[in-house]
């Protein structure tokens, strides 16, 4: 198995693990942790898909610009991952803030306690 395949497999495993965790744990904090695991998996997949074997990191300080196109790996997925990480951080923080307020409101962190809105 190549490096790419290993990381793809790990990435998808993390995604499924995270989703499973988020959908099977009733505790809101556990759900949030599970989602971070899933987004780590997504990030891993992003990097793995964009990786070109044998290429270097796309940092032009160390690589002459002229030969950059042959030597560096695809920079786009790397940029995407950076953005995705930042956004993931924001969403996780927001979810945690929500968890805090939900707990303050009801004294519970069980998702199935918050079902007054339905039908």
């Amino acid at each position, binding site marked *: 198995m190549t490096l790419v395949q290993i990381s793809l497999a790990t990435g998808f495993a993390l995604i499924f693990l995270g989703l499973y965790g988020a959908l099977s744990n009733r505790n809101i904090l556990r759900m949030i942790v599970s989602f971070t695991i899933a987004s780590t998996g997504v990030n891993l997949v992003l990097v793995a898909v964009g990786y070109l074997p044998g290429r270097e990191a796309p940092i032009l300080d160390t690589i002459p610009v002229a030969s950059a196109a042959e030597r560096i790996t695809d920079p786009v997925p790397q940029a995407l991952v950076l953005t*995705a990480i930042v956004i993931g951080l924001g969403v996780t923080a927001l979810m945690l803030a929500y968890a805090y307020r939900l707990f303050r409101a009801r004294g519970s962190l069980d998702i199935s306690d*918050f079902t007054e809105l339905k039908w």
Partner: protein
Amino acid sequence: MVNPLLILAAGLGAAFLLGLLRETSERAAFHTTVGALAVMAFVALSWTVALASGQTDPVEMLTAGAKPPFAINLRTGIAEAALTSVVTLTGLLSAFFMRRDLLRLGRRAMAVLLVLIMALSGLIMTRDLFNMFVFLELIVIATAGLVLLSKDTRALAAGFKYLVVSQVISILLLIGIIFTYHANGSLNIDDISEVPMGANGASLAMFLVLIALILELKPFPANGWALDIYESAHPGFSAIFSAASGSAALFAVYKVLAMAGPDWALLAAGIGIVTFVGANLLALAQTHDRRLLGYSSVGQIGLILLVIGFADRLGDSFLYIAGGLLVSHAIAKAGLFWLSGMVKARDLSDWAALRENPVLVVLFAVFIAMLTGLPPFPAFYAKWSFVHVLATDGAYSLMAVFLIAALIEATVLFRWFGMALKRSSGHSLHISLTGEAIALIAAALAIAVSWVWGNLSGQENLITLVPLLFALLFLPLDILPARIKNVLAIAGLVFWFAVTKNGLDPLRYVFLIIMVLGGAILLLASFHATGRRMGFYTPALLMFAGMGLLVTSETSFQFFAAWEFLTVGSYFLILRGQDSEPHALSYITFSLGGAFALLAGFAIAANGAPTFPIENLSEVPSRIAPYVFVLLAAGFLTKTAVMGLHIWLPGAHAEAETDVSPMVSGILLKAGLFGLFVLLMEMGRQELFGVDLTIVLVWLGALSAFIGAVLSAFQEDAKRLLAYSSISQMGYAVFGLALMNHLGWLLALMFAINHFVYKSMLFLAVGGVKERTHTKLMYKMGGLITLMPFTFVSVLVGIIAMSGVPPLSGFGGRWIFYNAIMSTDLRLPMILIFMAGPVGFLYLFRLIHTIFLGQLKDELRLTKEAPFWILLPQMLFVGFLLSFAILPGMILRRVDSYIGTLFGDTPLVWTGKIVDSQYGTWNPVAIWGVIATVFVVVFILLIWMNHNAQKVKQFNIVFSAERPFKPQTTHFAWNFFAPYRKAMGFLETPVATSFWSGVSNMLHGTADFTRKLYTGNGQTYAVQLLFFVIAVYLIAMGGLS
């Protein structure tokens, strides 16, 4: 022109600026927010105007000094500009609407609002897949933040559920994006669309991107989270969530779908129609106003998704149709959410509080009409065009499903409107001038876009129609006293008649007289009303406008628009009656159902033609002609209340106000008859599966005539009696028309005229009695002949005319009728219709006997004659009936010769005032002479015998010292025809009513059962979402392979 990127820059910049302000200076923060939103809206609007008027071309905006795909690019074309206008304007107005809560929560909340509007605009303009993801995530974060504006603590849970679901969506989207990039080497939408992907290895990636964006549209049934937000969030935010977020997400789906290629269109269309049907069905079971609006939003967005799925097929008209639906949805939904902010309690009937402020009621009506797609709003044009495209493509089942779901939606919304008008609310209105002003601005925008869509329609611009404007004029005039408005209204009708009467064929001329001049006569009775009588004249004139336009319409579009006008106007009119809420609802449901049948019929008949003249109905290819015939006939028969489709009529006509009953009975029913005339004139006999459809009509007419009469005879309520009698009379007319011969048509026309006159007269008479006795139940009346002599005369003349005995015009009708059926060989329906005659006698006799003859009730001893203004039109009608009886030739002769040109025969020979037919002679003057002689002789005889009469004192009766259990049962007028009921009572079995209430219960049951799907648990919603994705994938792959 300013660079459209300023929209993004202004939003973002102002949001950062807010962070520099001090915590305590909320006002400055609010002004900054509103200022930024105003700048954004101005830029968006100026681009919309410039692009629409062709002053500029669409612009590509490059970022980071590089060309795509190396940097992100954005685009502003007409669609983008219009949508960002919708988004920014909604944001601006909602910011004002949420002012108090924004000030309470401070600058952070305002910054979040700015970011949301900025991100929505960005999502619309960007051409980069990953950039879309970024904007989407910004929207998610901002949405979750703004949900907390609500003081409802449940909003907290709703926001968290939303975040959970959004996490799942973003995982799908990211994976989809990276594999799409892997397959195409670009994230630029335009680059990707150049490489056809189809159903190859990359299809899963494309599917993931697409489904993730579609999930943002809250497709049914994976949308419980969205409904919870609608229910609990601040109404100002819900307006944004529905109007702005919905629009932006739809455009994102559109862009990606255009990129993915036509293979995926079916997927979007499928999810769209399922969502439209599912959401509207489930809305039936809702009692919570904002949740109902949520269901409705989901449904509307589903409908637009369906249209997007058809984008390729629609070609140039795509933007027109999708835009019409979208802008109607956005304005109406935002407006309704804003209104809901002024209603304190959350039950649908709590909207009754709106009645404290008539302006708000009008706004409510405008938004509901706009959402339902009634003319003259953009959604009306859009639905018209869309159904035409579906029909041209032969997508009949889709068209049927779409129209049925649209009907359910209309029922839900009008039920709500009825509650607001008729129920009472325990809470007063939360008066807010800002809120009212914002809703008014929305209504003004509604009118503006209606004008734009009308202009672009290639048809008539409905909003510039004089009769419509005249009806709307009475909205501001409503502060005047009713009498002044009545004078204006009558003058308007007479004027319209004078302007349009020239150049009409005699048939249309007669209908124009009935509908417009007849309306003016009936409005005389409205002088009786005192005070302002708010909300009467606009609907009444809307109805008359519809009828006036109907008669003069030349194309199917004009016809259908007029039909909708008269339907809506009469609905509002009927709803005014005291206990008419359920009846008005069933009226509008059946009427709109009928109207949709018309729409489908016209669409199939047009077969792709942009405008379809009514007379082209005769050239419809024989392959589709019978279906067109059935659909159109069904629409018209709903209006004439043929047996089976009649259940709306008795309640609607009986519960209406005194002067409204004659309008909706005497005049409005003729609209259906007019339609049938036109239909049969153009299409003639049609056969479907070997059955001659006119024979079916003959049977329907005969059955309606007979059963309607029987049911009428068994009514205790005088107005219901008259209402059932209308069903019977319309049955005669339908029967006559369907005979498809000269005399049959003359008969139908005769019935149209006569029915107008005597039914108007009788309804006014009975209404006058009701005004005085305060009851419609006949056994509570009796002996009123001496107290209300004029009313008695008009009822007497009315029933003589109606029963068809000489000398009045009813006899002429009968005479033609017997001639007509002599010349046909349909024996069985002929017998039925013969039988209907004597049964007609029964109910007419009951009417005059139980009201005017017999003993006078003690409590009615002081009853006065009916009011003058109610009597006046009756006396005019009496005069008309008497003269029409002597001189039937006045009108009939012209029409007779006109019908002669249609059938090419002359069965009637007119010599002077005498009419001859194959079977006999009708000499009205001679008949008058004979009758007058007989009458005078008998009268003298009676006077001569009067000295012998024995006076009987009233109450000269006992019940053997027993107090009867139900006193009214001892009254002779109660259950008047008990013996007949024993014989014919089985006809009273409410078969049609049971059937329709069964349909209604089944739909409600399904809705109530299915909505249990939304358990309220955030995890369940996420699981549903995943199952939805898997199910759609399997179906899509099955479809593609």
